[in-house]
């Protein structure tokens, strides 16, 4: 025991014990706050192939940082060198220490092995090989730390325009992390100078010191190294570095099918702590780019929520366009957290529509239901086009809201009025289910997302009109006249990033003209500025966001701009100098021409 103990292991040891105690306490506490539904999903899926996939994703994301690599190779290298390098240092160090039978039982021996074992060749085999591997791994981590240093003064080297403004506490934790590895290198080099037990790197650096300096400095530097480790471990559960561990359970929960609930749960706590505050969400946020709102991005919003200081103003100042969520390397459900924090329980109403003039129930068995949505009443050309398409396909249909129906409930839901939204959903569900329709087509992506994700319509298939038209074309039920129009397509946020529908509208458009590709499309498409998720922006501010989107579309010089959302069509039409068409209108025109 005494041979493998020296006072400087104490700071490290206390840090490790503290770290694991706090993590265990937090994780158990958060798990207890899961809803029964979330727990049931976990139990159901834990012994399936999904667990294996989660393991794969853990290696891919927590160690290799695959998604960051896709964003920027240098940034990916920086993250993975620190994560994978440190992980391998620990693993290889533990293997090496376990060969050293007598001392390997104490966890600190693996960390401070070079200090304790001066002549490893006499104690275990291949000691020299281990020394070379460990030195190389240390250099690997140090290269990442060096990049992090460069990044902090020159963001562009990793492809970032803005980086996170960290709190003092996060900065201290970061500096502790930065010091750990140079100190380890120095400590091992000094020991190598004295006993010759280092690898190529530590031996070379050690030779720069005189034996006297090495003797004097060896112990203090090892002590400093241990102190830095201890300080980092103590700060870790309270700083952004909590993401290092938390991302692992989060990936498992997510892969096993747990999702965010209506209100914040224990799962939300995991998501909040899994945010590494890397700041990747800042650059592409339209509010940052076009309006210079620089303190509302998820990185800051999640931080405030995590430390118990959520501000309604920050929660509200967001278009909910999902651009950040598409970029997030941790894959956090940022929009749901934003919605949960828009707490309106104090003013949320219910039962207000009890005395309403109900939309008449309708027997529509054998028909396709068509729901235009509120916004289609401002863009009647879309519903007219849909009528033409239904008739051309010989499909009987029921236009649910030809006169009017109540809203789908999503706008209220997004603003946190959960009771009122549930009230509307219930009424619409009754209307739709009682009518006997099997297929519900909607031309509004907001309604579509609501019907598919927030409703549970029994026996009804919900289709966006782009999906429906694509099917009609594929089945040959409508014949189109392929024109020579050059079309630029604007991906609506709610349809693309919201529901993952990118290909169907493109298939439809390719059938009526030539589809051009724009600089920002699909997952990277720009918001039209009028997303219903936001209530704080003025008309002029919305205009600035919209103008960016229009610029992206007009850059390819199209004859016509197409979209698949009445809201986007309305918004993009505001400057009044462009031809904006819904895909249904283009298809309807094409049918007419063919006849």
């Amino acid at each position, binding site marked *: 025991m005494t041979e493998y103990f020296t006072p400087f292991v104490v700071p490290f040891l206390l840090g490790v014990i503290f770290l694991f105690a706090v993590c265990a306490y937090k994780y158990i506490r958060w798990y207890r706050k899961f809803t029964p539904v979330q727990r049931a999903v976990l139990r159901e899926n834990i012994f399936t192939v999904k667990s294996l996939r989660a393991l794969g994703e853990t290696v891919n994301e927590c160690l290799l940082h695959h998604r960051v690599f896709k964003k920027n190779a240098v940034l990916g290298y920086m993250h993975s060198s620190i994560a994978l390098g440190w992980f391998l240092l620990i693993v290889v160090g533990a293997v090496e220490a376990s060969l050293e039978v007598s001392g390997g039982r104490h966890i600190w021996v693996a960390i401070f092995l070079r200090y304790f074992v001066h002549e490893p060749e006499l104690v275990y085999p291949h000691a020299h090989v281990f020394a070379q591997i460990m030195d190389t791994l240390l250099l690997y981590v140090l290269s990442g730390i060096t990049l992090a240093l460069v990044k902090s003064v020159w963001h562009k080297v990793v492809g970032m325009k803005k980086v996170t403004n960290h709190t003092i506490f996060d900065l201290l934790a970061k500096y502790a992390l930065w010091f750990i590895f140079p100190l380890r290198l120095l400590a091992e080099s000094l020991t190598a100078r004295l006993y010759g037990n280092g690898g190529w790197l530590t031996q070379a650096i050690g030779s720069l010191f005189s034996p006297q300096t090495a003797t004097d400095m060896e112990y203090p530097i090892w002590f400093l190294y241990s102190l830095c480790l201890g300080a980092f471990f103590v700060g870790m559960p309270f700083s952004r570095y909590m993401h290092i561990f938390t991302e692992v359970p989060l990936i498992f929960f997510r892969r096993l099918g747990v999702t965010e609930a209506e209100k914040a749960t224990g799962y939300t706590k995991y998501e909040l702590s899994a945010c590494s505050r890397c700041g990747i969400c800042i650059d592409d946020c339209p509010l940052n780019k076009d309006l210079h709102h620089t303190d509302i991005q998820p990185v800051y919003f999640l931080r405030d929520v995590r430390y118990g200081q959520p501000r309604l103003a920050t929660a509200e100042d967001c278009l909910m366009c999902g651009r950040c969520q598409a970029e997030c390397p941790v894959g956090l459900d940022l929009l749901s957290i934003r919605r949960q924090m828009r707490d309106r329980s104090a*003013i949320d*109403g219910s039962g*207000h*529509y009890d*005395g*309403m*003039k109900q939309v008449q129930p309708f027997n529509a068995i054998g028909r396709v239901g068509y729901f235009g949505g*509120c*916004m289609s*009443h*401002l863009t009647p050309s879309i519903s007219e086009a849909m009528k033409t398409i239904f008739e051309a396909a010989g499909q009987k249909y029921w236009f649910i809201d030809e*006169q*009017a129906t*109540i*809203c789908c*409930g999503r*706008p*209220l839901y997004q*603003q946190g*009025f959960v009771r*009122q939204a549930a009230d*509307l959903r219930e009424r619409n569900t009754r209307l739709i289910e009682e009518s006997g329709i099997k297929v519900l087509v909607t031309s509004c992506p907001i309604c579509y997302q609501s019907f598919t994700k927030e409703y549970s319509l029994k026996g009804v298939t919900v289709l966006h009109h782009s999906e429906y038209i694509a099917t009609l074309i594929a089945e040959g039920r409508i014949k189109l006249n392929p024109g020579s129009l050059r079309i630029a397509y604007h991906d609506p946020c709610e349809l693309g990033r919201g529901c993952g529908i990118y290909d169907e509208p493109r298939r439809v458009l390719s059938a009526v003209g030539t589809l051009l590709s724009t600089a920002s499309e699909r997952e990277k498409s720009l918001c039209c500025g*009028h997303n*219903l998720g936001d*209530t*704080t*922006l*003025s*008309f*002029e501010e919305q205009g600035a966001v919209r103008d960016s989107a229009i610029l992206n579309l007009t850059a390819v010089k199209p004859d016509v701009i197409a979209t698949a959302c009445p*809201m986007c069509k*309305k918004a993009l039409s505001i400057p009044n100098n462009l031809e904006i068409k819904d895909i249904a209108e283009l298809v309807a025109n094409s049918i007419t021409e063919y006849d």
Partner: protein
Amino acid sequence: MDFGFTISKTRVIDLSAANMEKAARVEEVRRCMDCGGCTATCTAGQFIDFNIHRTHLLFRRGQYEGLDKALEACMLCGKCTLVCPRGVNLRRMIINMRTLLP
């Protein structure tokens, strides 16, 4: 007892007596030019007795009584905001009014 008629309350609006403090805090109401476009397009107004223009006019005058209940009818669909010729952010206005009203 029902006489078949009642005595109407006075409809005189005493702006000096009204508590204008809340009305002053909702900036959006001052931009309105009373065209009524919002009410004409309102989806909620087709189903129940809800008139967004009337509601916010009363609010602007400091006559807050019953407005909190009336505003629960709004479904925040945003059509009114799009048709408003003055670019008033009506959704924001409605949420602000609801937050201030008792």
